[in-house]
């Protein structure tokens, strides 16, 4: 017989997010270093203010293509030689673009860091953007777009953005571009984008792991001595809703065993005064396993393997979305439960138990999030990208603990908009069309992909 009495918590041990240095080098580069010496490992992350939100209109996808091509050749080295050189050092550099930044990152054993950083510096300062590699990466992106046509989850995400934002909004198109915009991109577009955006004043190097700020400084000054000076001009971001009416779209997938559901509206930019109450509110609504939406759809009804809600935080207002996949024959009842949950959290205060579950989880899990050098580097990137205060991580837990049920209700009322909900279903239109018409979610439009 196992002991019946639940154990009590012991005294909590204190934890601090790793201290880090933050400096501007003479060249204009910003450098953040977080020394963490548990294991002989270092993560290096180069962040450039050259994300997909900076794509010029009609050139959607050029930020991602440019970032991808950074490691595909210089005047001296081919892409194949670059991969080989990194891999012999036991590391591989990876590059790409998110909405708000371009990045290049690698994790290396401390013994190889200097060689890897020097190599990375050489390559990033002189990318040649070989024509052949430009065309290859475009073709690989087009293959990926084609794959999405038969991948219900990705397709639902993409269609949701398309129906959520006005066509002139950058967020209405995929961050890596669609088949039309990608097909039209040229080597010149890439070169122009690189020249305009990759500057010292727009670049931050982050090092986390087995390294000191002094050696990081020496390393980065040497490796990046020829980076173009200046600061890029930032683009004005358009991110407006496509409609102020509720609307309902079915993307038809014959005989689909499940419906992929996305329900939501244009959300919030990352930097808002009531970020913490909103975070806790969403945790209660659909951000945790024990959230209302998951417990309702999965554990009470068995409609799904999982259901969640989230704000997709970006510099501009990214989507707020409830996301799940349910068996086709319960599409309408599942949607009804989602609507009820969105309404319910706006009308009545959440219980103290619900508040403490979300708050204690977000507070307690904090140290678990920063176990690895890669996670620490990425946390520092968040500070840089969203221009958050240097003590953001030191005050994070207090800010979470300070959220009240009243603040959660206020956040729900301010930031959830049942009247603006856009619903996208990727599923079998014949099987679900009639039953979803009565939900009051707007006129049902069926699209054949």
């Amino acid at each position, binding site marked *: *017989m*196992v*002991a019946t009495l*639940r*154990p009590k*918590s*012991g005294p*909590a*041990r*204190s934890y601090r997010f790793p201290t880090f240095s933050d400096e501007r080098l003479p060249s204009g580069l910003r450098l953040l270093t977080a020394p963490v010496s548990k*294991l*002989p490992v270092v993560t290096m992350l180069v962040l450039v203010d050259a994300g997909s939100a900076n794509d010029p209109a009609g050139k959607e996808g050029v930020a991602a293509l440019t970032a991808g091509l950074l490691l595909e050749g210089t005047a001296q080295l081919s892409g*194949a030689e670059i*991969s*080989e050189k990194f*891999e*012999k*050092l*036991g*590391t*591989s550099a990876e590059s790409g673009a998110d909405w708000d930044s371009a990045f290049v990152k690698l*994790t*290396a054993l401390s013994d190889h860091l200097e060689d890897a950083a020097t190599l990375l510096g050489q390559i990033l300062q002189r990318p040649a953007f070989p024509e052949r590699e430009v065309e290859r990466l*475009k*073709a*690989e992106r*087009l293959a990926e*777009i*084609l*794959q*999405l046509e*038969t*991948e*219900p*989850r990705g397709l639902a995400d993409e269609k949701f953005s398309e129906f959520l934002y006005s066509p002139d909004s950058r967020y209405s198109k995929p961050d890596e571009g669609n*088949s039309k915009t990608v*097909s039209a991109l040229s080597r010149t577009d890439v070169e122009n984008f690189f020249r305009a955006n990759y500057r010292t004043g727009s670049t931050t190097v982050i090092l986390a792991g087995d390294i000191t700020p002094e050696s990081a400084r020496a390393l980065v000054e040497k490796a990046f001595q020829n980076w173009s000076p200046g600061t890029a001009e930032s683009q004005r971001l358009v991110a407006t809703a496509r409609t102020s009416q509720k609307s309902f779209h079915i993307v038809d997938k014959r005989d*689909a065993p*499940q419906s992929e559901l996305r329900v939501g509206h244009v959300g919030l930019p990352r930097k808002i005064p009531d970020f913490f109450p909103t975070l806790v509110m969403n945790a209660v609504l659909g951000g945790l*396993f*024990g959230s209302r939406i998951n*417990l309702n759809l999965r*554990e*009470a*009804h*068995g*409609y*799904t*393997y999982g259901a969640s809600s989230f704000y997709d935080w970006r510099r501009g207002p990214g989507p707020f979305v409830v996301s799940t*996949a349910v068996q086709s024959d319960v599409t309408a009842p599942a949607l009804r439960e989602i609507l009820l949950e969105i309404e319910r959290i706006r009308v009545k205060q959440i219980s103290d138990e619900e508040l403490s*579950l979300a708050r204690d*989880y977000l*507070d*307690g*899990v904090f*140290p*678990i999030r920063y*176990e*690895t*050098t890669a996670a620490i580097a990425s946390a520092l990137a968040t500070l840089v990208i969203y221009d958050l205060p240097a003590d953001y991580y030191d005050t994070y837990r207090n800010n979470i603990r300070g959220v009240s049920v009243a603040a959660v209700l206020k956040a729900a009322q301010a930031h959830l908009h049942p009247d603006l909900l856009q619903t996208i279903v990727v599923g079998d239109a014949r099987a679900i069309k009639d039953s979803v018409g009565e939900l009051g979610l707007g006129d049902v439009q069926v699209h054949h992909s």
Partner: protein
Amino acid sequence: MRIPVETFRLDNGLFVTLSEDHTAPIVAVNLWYHVGSANEKPGRTGFAHLFEHMLFQGSAHVASNEHFEMIQRAGGTLNGSTWLERTNYFETVPSNELALALWLEADRMGDLLPAMTQEKLDTQRDVVKNERRWSVDNQPYGTMLEKLQELVFPRSHPFEHSLIGSMEDLSAASLDDIAQFFVTYYTPDNAVLSIAGDFDASEARALIGEYFGPIPRGKGKPPLPPMTLPPVFGSPLREVVEDDVSLPRLFMAFRSPVFGSDQYYAASIASALLGMRKGSRLHRALVRERQIAADAGAFTLDLAKGTDLLVVDVTARPETPVAQLEEEVEREIDLLHRDGVSEEEVRRAQALIETDLIASLQSAGERADRLSMFATYFGRPELINEQVDRYRAVTAKKVNELVKERFGEDNRASLIYVPREGVETENLLAAAVGAG
């Protein structure tokens, strides 16, 4: 670099490994039960995994879903997973909540059955059926693992049937099956408990003794049927699957030495030099140079009994005909089989694997999981500290011996996904080809 490893066994047979690290106030608790889909009875495919779901539905002193709630309330993360040979359950919690995590695991190991009801089983059956729809049936290439198992293992071999199970078998599972399975396999002598992170060893020993000590030893589990297989298939195997996919994709599997054996490390290096990262043979040749593939990789399933599988995974570019995809992959394998590998290629693979091994040990959860794995399969958790050396000991000669034995035409099983007739992709295809 070595991580500390301490072990002991309780009288009831529970094997325990402890690994202290006080750099952050975090502790990981990890349990491996030595039971997986391989132990399922005919007509009950998917049962081990369905059972894993039921373990979150409460036990004698824990209400349904309360396990999840209590750990999350404590600021912890948790989950479970099922594989062919084992099922694991794990949580990472603030170090002052170690007792809670251990108590919850002990309550469900010792006292699960009083909490099981038909209603809970019915709901979780629906959840698992939706998991199957989501991850297998409504996902391009989602049937890969079960199709591959069927193709490469002989009928009635314990690895031959689906891990997530068929809809029919899931429907047939009863409460009585749950009770039988629990009594047979969820016993302390069929489990390994690992703790990694910030804890005091003597305190942990006391808690483990108190919570797990009273749980009675099991009555033994039925032996698995013979699992050993010849080193090669004997002749090439091939299956073509028409599915709702946009691009053809080839999975080519080879029987390969079981996880943990000396030869396994040579196979793992062979897999890495074929398909790990962009500098690998397949990526360089098929994606970068010849541009017939959108993606290429290789991996091993890490099976510790019978035979392991090394799998090459190549997705075609839209304009590449299936026949060409197969031909060109075959050619790369022929080349490897005929000419072998160079020391330089082996060193590239070793360097990449070494960095990954060390970087992965940063996380307490990973350390605990690997300790459980080595203890469950080999009774030797300290193997966690020998991995880098085992990989370093692999030479080109050893890889070439492996390659000669395992990469011939008599040891290739090809599973090929092709777009179903009538899938309307022509417009996109034209756009893709036009830009290529």
